[in-house]
């Protein structure tokens, strides 16, 4: 089942189900319980975006939900706010709290967010209980007036539809976000933060955005809860409730569209069963979480989805096309600078790790339409220099300019947006995304559609998405992977993964591409094809920096070669000249007698060949 079909099916069936429920003439109590369930599902959807898309965990979601709830309650009681402004303020407050928590914690490691959110949950409880004048202490805030919107009094009967409407909104938002560049960027950062930033994605901002979205939804749910219950106190927003939200998401199926709905449904009605366990109730929750993690880590919806896929999918063999298919290179991919013009100018780049100078005073000029080879023995600092140039390391000294702009010390994602692309020595694909999606992530910096347009699916979103998909398709054709576009990247054979990584890097429409050992692990035939592709790129005016151990490949392709040894540039110039440089020989083979032997050996080998 395609996600689109699943989305519409659940949307239509869900609304129909709610309608039927109301037609059956349920008691006020039953309506209240289901309304609460709808509200909890909104929080679960937010948490599902955070966990399933961005790969981050919040263990304080109940507190964020509480911020929205208390804020709305306080404004309604003390400032006379109506339903809509109170709930809206709750959303804003929860989002701001979310941003404040995420900012310090997601810059370094995603795990930190989990720890910080638990801490926040405890602070929040503490404040709710102790700050009596504002929060009402343990008694909470009571006597909240029933809401009114557009002149309609929100009775329980009507409020049910308000909550249902908000849930439908959250469900649509989840779908629209997941299948857009924002969702892809989140999944990309979760699967490989390095590759994501090399494609122009600001990893910290993306994570923060994901958390703010989840906080906003929790805030919305909190406000709705306030006007359902008309009474709030600290007991609703405990750590235990946070775990319960987590359970909803995991139980339903992390990252699935409908998982949070299923999870919220189960977790609303299960506690009534758990009453019997008395003091073992918490234990039952823990056991439930453990059992799901061990037995069904994909959750209910996830497991069903896998089952359905297995039943319906027919194995089909895929054919990789000949590559590079020169005609397929999209015009947009390369808007070259004039051949020979200076693209990147590195001056005296140096980086020191502890006491070790990995790169010392390295300078390099890279010109449009030329291949610049970068060679040197193992540990010479080639990769470090590449990481410096692409912004993964911050230089200790030196400067760099890219297309005339001073880019010294820029971060990887900024450099990527300025026209620098790279591949990785050990391919870093987004394994759980499809081949096509991998390439689409590469376009991230080129989208013009705003967030609002994306969430509302305004016409420009569709047009742009279509155009990008077409360009991605031709990049896949270029590397001969058209037939694989809906396959998960992790299922590709190694040689194809290398090709995909190049296609993905080209999606950033680079002026300069750094290839870090692109031939490693490729067969002889594949290396020849790779050489054709590199020539094709330079013909279109792209500048290429090539780090390789296949010296003959470097020498045959490169216009210029720079040789590194012990972090220093020991030779630089046209390939032929560098090849005969005695210092280069020495670096590779040692000096004196050994070198003589090597020379003789090389001559004999040449004679035999």
């Amino acid at each position: 089942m395609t996600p689109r079909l699943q989305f519409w099916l659940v949307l239509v069936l869900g609304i129909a189900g709610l309608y039927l429920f109301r037609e059956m003439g349920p008691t006020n109590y039953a309506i209240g319980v289901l309304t609460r369930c709808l509200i909890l599902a909104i929080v679960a959807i937010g948490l599902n975006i955070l966990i399933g898309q961005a790969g981050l965990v919040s263990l304080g979601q109940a507190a964020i939900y509480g911020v929205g709830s208390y804020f709305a309650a306080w404004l309604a009681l003390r400032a006379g706010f109506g339903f809509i402004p109170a709930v809206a303020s709750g959303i804003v407050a929860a989002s701001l709290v979310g941003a404040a928590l995420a900012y310090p914690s997601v810059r370094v490691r995603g795990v930190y967010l989990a720890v910080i959110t638990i801490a926040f949950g405890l602070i929040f409880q503490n404040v709710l209980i102790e700050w009596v004048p504002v929060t009402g202490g343990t008694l909470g805030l009571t006597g909240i007036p029933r809401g009114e919107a557009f002149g309609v009094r929100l009775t329980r009967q009507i409020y049910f539809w308000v909550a249902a409407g908000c849930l439908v909104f959250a469900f649509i938002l989840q779908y629209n976000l997941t299948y857009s560049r924002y969702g892809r960027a989140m999944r990309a950062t979760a699967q490989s933060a390095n590759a994501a930033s090399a494609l122009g994605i600001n990893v910290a901002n993306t994570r923060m955005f994901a958390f703010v979205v989840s906080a906003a939804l929790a805030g919305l749910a909190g406000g709705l809860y306030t006007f359902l219950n008309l009474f709030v106190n600290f007991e609703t927003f405990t750590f235990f409730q946070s775990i319960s939200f987590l359970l909803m998401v995991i139980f339903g199926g992390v990252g699935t569209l409908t998982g949070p709905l299923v999870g919220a449904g189960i977790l609303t009605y299960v506690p009534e069963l758990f009453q019997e366990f008395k003091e073992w109730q918490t234990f039952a929750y823990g056991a439930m979480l453990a059992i799901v993690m061990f037995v069904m880590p994909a959750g209910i919806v996830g497991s069903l989805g896998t089952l359905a896929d297995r039943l319906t999918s027919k194995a089909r063999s895929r054919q990789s096309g000949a590559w590079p298919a020169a005609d397929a290179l999209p015009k947009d991919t390369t808007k070259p600078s004039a051949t020979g013009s200076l693209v990147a100018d590195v001056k005296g780049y140096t980086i020191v790790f502890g006491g070790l100078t990995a790169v010392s005073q390295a300078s390099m000029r890279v010109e449009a339409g030329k291949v610049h080879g970068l060679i040197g023995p193992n540990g010479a600092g080639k990769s470090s220099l590449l990481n410096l140039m692409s912004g993964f390391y911050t230089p200790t000294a030196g400067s760099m300019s890219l297309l005339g702009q001073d880019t010294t010390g820029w971060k990887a994602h900024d450099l990527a947006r300025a026209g620098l692309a790279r591949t990785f020595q050990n391919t870093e694909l987004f394994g759980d995304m499809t081949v096509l999606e991998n390439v689409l992530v590469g376009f991230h910096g080129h989208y013009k559609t705003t967030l609002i347009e994306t969430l509302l699916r305004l016409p420009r979103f569709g047009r742009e998405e279509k155009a990008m998909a077409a360009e991605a398709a031709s990049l896949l054709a270029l590397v001969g992977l058209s037939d694989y576009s809906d396959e998960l990247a992790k299922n590709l054979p190694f040689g194809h993964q290398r090709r995909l990584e190049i296609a993905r890097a080209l999606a950033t429409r680079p002026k300069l591409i750094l290839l870090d050992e692109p031939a490693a692990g490729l067969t002889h035939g594949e290396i020849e094809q790779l050489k054709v592709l590199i020539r094709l790129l330079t013909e279109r005016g792209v500048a290429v920096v090539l780090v390789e151990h296949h010296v003959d490949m470097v020498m045959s392709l490169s216009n210029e070669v720079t040789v590194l040894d012990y972090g220093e540039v020991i030779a630089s110039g046209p390939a032929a000249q560098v090849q005969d440089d005695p210092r280069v020989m020495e670096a590779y083979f040692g000096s004196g007698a050994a070198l003589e032997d090597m020379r003789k050996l090389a001559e004999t080998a040449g004679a035999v060949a």
Partner: protein
Amino acid sequence: MEQVIQFILSGLSQGGVYALVAIGFYMMWSATHAANFTHGDVFMLGAVSTVVFGEIGVPLILAMPLGIAVSAVAGALIERIAVRPFNHGPSSIGWMLTTIAIGLMLESALTATYGPLGRPLYSPFAQSPIRIGGSGIYAQELLIPAVAIGLMVLLELFYRHTILGRAMLAVAANPTAAGLMGINVSRIALIAYAMAGAVGALGGILLAPVSEASSSMGALIGLKAFVVAIVAGISNARGVVIVSLGYGILEKFIEGYISTAARNSIGFGILILLLLAFPNGIFGKREVSKV
């Protein structure tokens, strides 16, 4: 002045407890780049089982190592069952959830069987307070930070001068390379979690005579220790101990000058601000992402 000394001394005691738990987080993190999220419950298990052993007539001198052993085994089991199968690389989150699940089960099972109330553990050092410059404190309370600091020194010697310790450092620096050098990375992880459990249990046992052993004693301390370890820079053992002790003192000053009720909110608030100022931890080195 008297009051200040009192705050510092009892703060050091509190901080010593955080340190003994936080060192565990350091050990687990070094070995696996993951941790038992509810390590505080392993700390609690050590104290509670020592009390239980004592109650069934095991002499204290034997009950303590037994309690430590229980926690060490629990730590090792958690590593095998809950961490290893759910930890595949830096973006894994499964281990957080499984360890939380186990922590919830452990804590609630003990609340149901051992009882919700705390019980004291006898210690000869917690009978009558000693007076230092007008402020009274139990010797036991001073013992805690002393043990924490002593243990840190021992650990550093262990890491530097024993084969096992060096192997652990190697795994912390680069598990793949360490594995290629013939180090059994998975056994190192197991040992690290067992050691973390043992050190945590020691903290619990030292704390029990002054504030009783209960099933709920670990959750909050464990969490604070985790946050403290992160703020200190989780890859620096000495930094973790220093910040733990400092945080203990800070808490006592907040209690003394502001209010007991505000202790956690202000304390955590300060920790979050510190993380904002030092994203890699106060003593942490900036991690160079291997590309």
